[in-house]
């Protein structure tokens, strides 16, 4: 009853995307609390059961969902989910949960000699950056995606990576975070901060050199000398190690723009979630990133769409009035029926409101295909549940 009746947008056909061998990456993104992780896991499972070798990268799954995929330990490497394959025996499903700090540590270890790596890993500034910087999670999610992609190409372990994006303040953060961190580490400020080690102000130009001492003075007073020196040491160590953070950020960004990538924007039929989805769709368009469509989770389904809220409400009112004047069995029956009609009316009005919001989204983005997934009575926490969601995702009318 959902799908064609729910929205006037074109239908999102997910199966052709999952089966398209030229698609290697699917990115699920959207506001927090809209079911991104469940969507990513369901897509991954469905693709695996259609014969693809899939790796699902999740960021922060709910405990029971993680258990459903066999993710009991956090070891930052993909683990195979046992017993998942296509009917002909092909296909497989791997899953992993991102460990942000570990991923960062690995980046350091793989790019620096042991001595220098140790120097970086024990630096207080690095420790704070790798465990608490608001953009680190986004950056590391993209870093991990890049690593998995390289491994997939070299070893052929996977031919499809499904990634769930971090629960950012704004869904756009994860696109910007790598570039931001990259531009910081490659940027002017870093050159200034590391300048004392190279001889103050060298290469900065006369004007900048003049401003430089004022600048370090300010920083000294605000941050304190100890922070500044920790920062300087960190930056000097990392500067010579990473060979250009920006290059890495650019490579990840290019990977996301590639035709082998497909973005799935996830939302719930609520104002805020759809507003986020709208921003994201616009941003993907601006950046020329390949958008598959919108998955609309938790949609109220309607069992008898021709039986309107008004009809049900009027019937309920009439029956309640009748029940007041009676004290018999008929009154109990009338009361019960009135209650059921009220339930139906509430359901219809909720569905109408959701449809209104979905229509507004479609009016703003007419070409974006939509798949509406009905609200389930209970949360998903096993493979069967994910299979059900996958089926619903694919059955957009």
């Amino acid at each position, binding site marked *: 009853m959902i799908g064609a009746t729910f929205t006037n947008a074109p239908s999102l056909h997910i199966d052709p995307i999952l089966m398209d061998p030229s698609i290697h990456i699917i990115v699920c993104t959207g506001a927090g609390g809209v079911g991104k992780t469940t969507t990513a896991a369901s897509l991954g499972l469905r693709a695996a059961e259609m014969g693809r070798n899939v790796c699902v990268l999740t960021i922060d799954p709910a405990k029971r969902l993680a258990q459903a995929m066999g993710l009991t330990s956090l070891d930052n490497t993909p683990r195979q989910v046992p017993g998942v394959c296509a009917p002909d025996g092909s296909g497989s499903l791997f899953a992993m949960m991102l460990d942000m700090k570990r991923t960062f540590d690995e980046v350091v270890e793989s790019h620096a000699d042991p001595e220098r790596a140790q120097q970086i890993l024990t630096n207080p500034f690095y420790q704070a950056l790798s465990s608490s910087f608001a953009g680190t999670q986004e950056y590391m999610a993209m870093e991990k995606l890049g690593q998995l992609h390289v491994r997939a190409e070299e070893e052929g372990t996977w031919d499809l990576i499904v990634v769930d994006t971090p629960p950012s303040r704004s869904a756009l953060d994860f696109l910007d975070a790598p570039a931001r961190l990259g531009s910081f580490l490659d940027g002017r400020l870093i050159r200034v901060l590391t300048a004392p080690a190279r001889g103050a102000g060298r290469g900065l130009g006369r004007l900048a050199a003049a401003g430089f001492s004022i600048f370090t003075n300010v920083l000294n007073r605000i941050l304190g000398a100890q922070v500044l020196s920790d920062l300087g040491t960190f930056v000097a160590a990392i500067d010579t190690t990473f060979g250009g953070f920006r290059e890495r950020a650019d490579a990840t960004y290019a990977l996301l723009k590639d035709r082998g990538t497909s973005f799935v924007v996830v939302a719930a039929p609520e104002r805020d979630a759809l507003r986020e989805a709208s921003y994201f769709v616009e941003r993907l368009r601006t950046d020329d990133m390949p958008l598959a469509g919108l998955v609309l989770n938790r949609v109220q389904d309607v069992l008898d769409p021709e039986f309107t809220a008004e009809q049900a409400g009027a019937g309920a009112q009439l029956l309640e009035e009748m029940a007041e004047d009676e004290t018999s069995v008929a009154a109990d029956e009338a009361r*019960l029926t009135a209650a*059921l009609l009220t339930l139906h009316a509430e359901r219809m009005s909720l569905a109408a409101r959701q449809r209104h919001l979905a229509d507004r989204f479609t009016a703003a983005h007419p070409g974006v295909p939509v798949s509406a997934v009905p609200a389930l009575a209970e949360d998903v926490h096993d493979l069967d549940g994910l299979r059900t969601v996958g089926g619903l995702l694919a059955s957009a009318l």
Partner: protein
Amino acid sequence: MSDRLWPDVALHVVSGKGGTGKTTVAAAMALALARDGRRTLLIEVEGRQGIAQLFDTPPLPYEERKVAVAPGRGEVWALAIDAQEALLDYLETFYNFRRAGTALRRMGAVDFATTIAPGLRDVLLTGKAIEVVRRKQKNASDAYDAVVMDAPPTGRVAKFLNVSSEVSGLAKVGPIRNHADLVMGVIASPQTAVHLVTLLEEMPVQETIDGVEELRKDGLPVGGVVVNMTRTPVLTERELQAASEGTLPADAIRRSLQRCGLGAHADDIVPALLEEASDHAQRVALEARERQRVDALGLPTFTLPFLAGGVDLGGLYELAEVLSEGGVR
């Protein structure tokens, strides 16, 4: 009406899992606390302009603006805190450095401090909130009777508020450290209460339970739990039982439909009604289970109704009224 809760709290921090309606609850709380001629300030820290959307006003600048009036001539003001502006504000207040701001911005230092430097951003955001909480009027009374913060979601709120520990790895001494300690002195005191918003669903309730534990571990004062978007049950216990077992009397329902003029479509309507009743019973049972888990926390709990027409200003007053009845005033 229940007794007035948290009479000495000056800063109410409202958090909750994404999608639970924490911005709405924060706004309703600011309205409830502004009753009877008081003045409250509602602040947001995530740059989403959620308050402006809720009150249907143009985007809020980095400036306190009146957004609503409360019953009994109370006033709700609002402020969207922006980390960059807060940094320049901080530099001006403490160092008279405003003019250096432009130079710092050009160097990328402002961007660095507010987006890259770990913990600094949070110190700036919470620091501004604390500045407002401590601000006095000329006659030495508090500038606001209460400040309500629409905070980051439950998963991040303890870390966000625990600014001292966030900067401790970095700055063991120095001005930043002092500032963080000052902020922490208010946040980790009886002057603050952190409230968590949830729905009666498994994941939000689990996050609430985890959040309470985390806040307590960090020594942050937990306030109450707000159960949002609840519906009034329309069926009795026995009817719910029958609905889930599929034993509701179909014939009786058919008879009643005939009496109210819906008999002609009964063949379509009855099965739909029975299935919807069964869904409803399942949902009610799930909510009851989750409600027990919320109650087990032993915290003051408020139950807000689901607003069928969506949240508008009228709806906010309705929610504020429920909070006031429950002791938030």
